[in-house]
């Protein structure tokens, strides 16, 4: 496995929508490097013929009856919103300066 660079961490932070200062990037790069090194052993544990398990107790086709259930009212859904208008969430510009 390749080591994690500071640029990698900056890119990951951007993907994860977490703004990071230079000092934070520096610290996170070091810590992630140690962690990733210690978990890299998983790739040698399992051979190609071992199936993957995504769910510990597999259930299939879990459906509910196709009837109207209980849902939050618009008022309940909006009661914790940082900003709302009428019956909608309000957010800043979605497109960057255009």
């Amino acid at each position, binding site marked *: 496995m390749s080591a994690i660079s500071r640029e990698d961490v900056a890119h990951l932070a951007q993907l994860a929508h977490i*703004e990071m200062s230079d000092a934070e990037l520096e610290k996170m790069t070091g810590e992630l490097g140690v962690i*990733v090194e210690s*978990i890299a052993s998983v790739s040698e544990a399992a051979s190609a013929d071992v199936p993957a398990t995504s769910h*510990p107790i597999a259930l299939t086709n879990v459906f509910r009856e196709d009837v109207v259930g209980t849902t939050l009212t618009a008022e309940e859904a909006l*009661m*914790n919103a940082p900003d709302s208008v009428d019956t909608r969430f309000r*957010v800043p510009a979605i497109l960057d300066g255009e």
Partner: protein
Amino acid sequence: MNQIIQLSATELAAKLRAGEITSVEAVQAHLDRIAEIDGGERGVHAFLHVNTDEALAVAAEVDAIRAAGGAEAEALHPLAGVPIAIKDLIVTKGQPTTAASKMLEGWMSPYDATVISKIRAAKLPMLGKTNLDEFAMGSSTEHSAYGPTRNPWDLDRIPGGSGGGSAAAVASFEAPLALGTDTGGSIRQPGAVTGTVGVKPTYGGVSRYGAIAMASSLDQIGPVARTVLDSAYLHELIGGHDPADSTSLNEQVPALIAAAEQGATGDMTGVRVGVIKELQGEGYEAGVQARFDESLEALRAAGAEIVEVSCPNFKYALAAYYLIMPSEVSSNLAKFDGVRFGTRVLPEEGPLTIERVMGATRAAGFGEEVKRRIILGTYALSAGYYDAYYGSAQKVRTLIQRDFDAAFALADVLISPTSPNVAFELGSKIDDPLSMYLNDVATIPANMAGIPGITVPGGLSEGLPVGIQFLAPAREDARLYRVGAALEKLLEDSWGGRLLDQAPELSATTTGGVA
């Protein structure tokens, strides 16, 4: 100490039924205890929110029903009127839910978790919400954005995590019962280091609806208590199928109370107990190993057949867990973006776009450990690494399940120390994430395989509690209650009382609180 708070939940329930104590008296005694030892400078700090008015109102309602008698009184749940504390990862109407994060400061859930609906229906007064590592990420409760919880056995030490608040509340007699959640050991490891009982049920055995998701394929809600029998009562109450959780098992809750009662005879004749070779020895403190060996001897003397089992792939469990869990974390926590709920922080300068608001919100709202896991998960899931990391970790999960299958062919239950060490000092591992992660080495395999686990007090090492863990096959939670209650009985006979009787006396003086 007030005698009421020393009672176990089932003892208290019996006195409530007999009319010897009222529920209002019981709730008030616990609120007084919280006021005395929780808030001081060196207070236990198990609670993030105390739900005084509602708890007393529910207690008064139960008392009125009992006083009136008749069918309604007869129909009360056995635990009606017995107070309970709720881990602040589980959403509650009418009380704040923070997940111990700044991200959810002031957030009020518009709905109740299914386990909360069940607790309301059974009329257990809720004392409040307990502290945890932020979004349940940690093994010490030091990652709470609202300050750490202290271990009642030594106020300079950690109470375990993530559910340190629930475990400490129960251990310090602030509550007889609590709810926890266990993703990699967050019920069992705090139980171990505080000398209490905690159970991670079979995955799907208890609804997760309304537990703020950390890693959905691993998370499980479970009981926190001082005795195995109390856990069984709470587990039967919160368990069962829930259509609102698509991973919930559509099956009957096993007869856990009956199993605990059977175990309490102390007879282990015919029970095969498998000692997991890989979960002892190197890396486990000498005092932990000694208490573990004594527990094995006690079980053997009570008629158990002790066999050794090997789970060779457990050596990869921690690594696989630290790929699967952060991957799911990075996805589950994407919803905290300052749009629909929670904190919104605006960038200090530059254009005001939603992208930049999200970046600033998540930078300010999440603590270090949460950020570390989100970034690690984002890395594990990113193009080029997915197969090597996440894909391999999912295969390790299969290998761990196979190890368990082979072990359970030889034994009815498996046994190990719950945690490799006793409670460590506050601050001693906070800057070393890897060393912190090692606390969960013995508890993680159960989550990876979806099987149930229990921790029961195993004695003391240099004055600090050691936990003994039993594991059972999926859906066989009853076995844990049988053997857990048996070991509890055998060890309490040898100590001449409960382990918690040996805990230091806490008061307003020792915690710097208000008398």
